[in-house]
């Protein structure tokens, strides 16, 4: 896993997509998948996580990370994933508020944090 590509001017960004595009204003509630128990166990309701795009070559995964860049789990169990990735590559950023968390599961509310 090569990790995040934070440079918004990278070739992956689609310059035609405005950062403030309405179709990127996604808000949804979701359970994380591939939950990392140690990180999830330390979270409390109300904690803020960053939604980060991770790259492995040309593959991408959307994960939630703590402010110490520890990955808690992935956003994968929803139909708007491709749209979310496209928006993130276009410059939209998202955060996730922890609604419930335990060593087995982590439920978050995701919303846009810019634009």
């Amino acid at each position, binding site marked *: 896993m090569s990790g995040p590509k934070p440079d918004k001017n990278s070739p992956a960004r689609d310059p035609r997509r405005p950062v403030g595009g309405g179709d990127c204003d996604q808000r949804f509630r979701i359970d994380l998948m591939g939950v990392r*128990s140690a990180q999830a166990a330390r979270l409390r309701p109300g904690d803020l996580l960053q939604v980060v795009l991770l790259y492995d070559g040309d593959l991408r995964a959307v994960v939630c990370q703590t402010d110490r860049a520890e990955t808690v789990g992935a*956003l994968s169990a929803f139909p708007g994933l491709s749209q979310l990735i496209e928006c993130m590559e276009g410059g939209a950023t998202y955060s996730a508020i922890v609604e419930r968390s335990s*060593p087995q599961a982590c439920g978050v509310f995701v919303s846009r944090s810019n634009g």
Partner: protein
Amino acid sequence: MRVLLFSGGLDSSAIAYWKRPDICLTVDYGQRPARGEIAAAQAICAELDLRQETLAVDLKALGSGTMSGKPTSRLAKAEEWWPYRNQMLVTLAGMRFVADGLTEIMIGAVKTDVHADGKYPFLRTIDRLMTLQEGRVNVTAPARKLSPEKLLDVSGFPLSAIGLTFSCHVMEYPCGRCRGCEKHLATLAWAKRRSRNSDEREPRDERTKT
């Protein structure tokens, strides 16, 4: 000693919960999602109070398909096909544990498996092959007649632990789009529907009783 080949996916997690093997063995054979599989396997076994062990044998050079990051073979029935994968995993598990009293290797094949090494002729033959050798180890596939959904049902695997499972074929974190993730999400959606339906039924049952 009963050993389960354990990837941390939904199917093998359900079998682990159902059959309570002595050891859940996760093999890092050079597949791209290995780190995700190991993390999930450790978390699930901690949750289920089962012993987990990881065996690393780098066979990446011999892989093909999405799990290895190489082109899919024209022989493959699905993009993730890795030649002789179950045969390799059974052999490695046997090599690791036969001198320690191994009696049975369980694999997570289910009814919907498309690869030949998940189907009955292979499963019967590999069992016969292993029992012909020292240790007379049996190879079983407890869920081979079950769909993933039926396996979840039969095993009683707790829905609260599903978030720990991991089925991605291509990355350390679930990509949400490969065949492994798609199957995972379909089974998850079924489990959630079933859970909602049973929740909805409960109040009616309560009213009937009163």
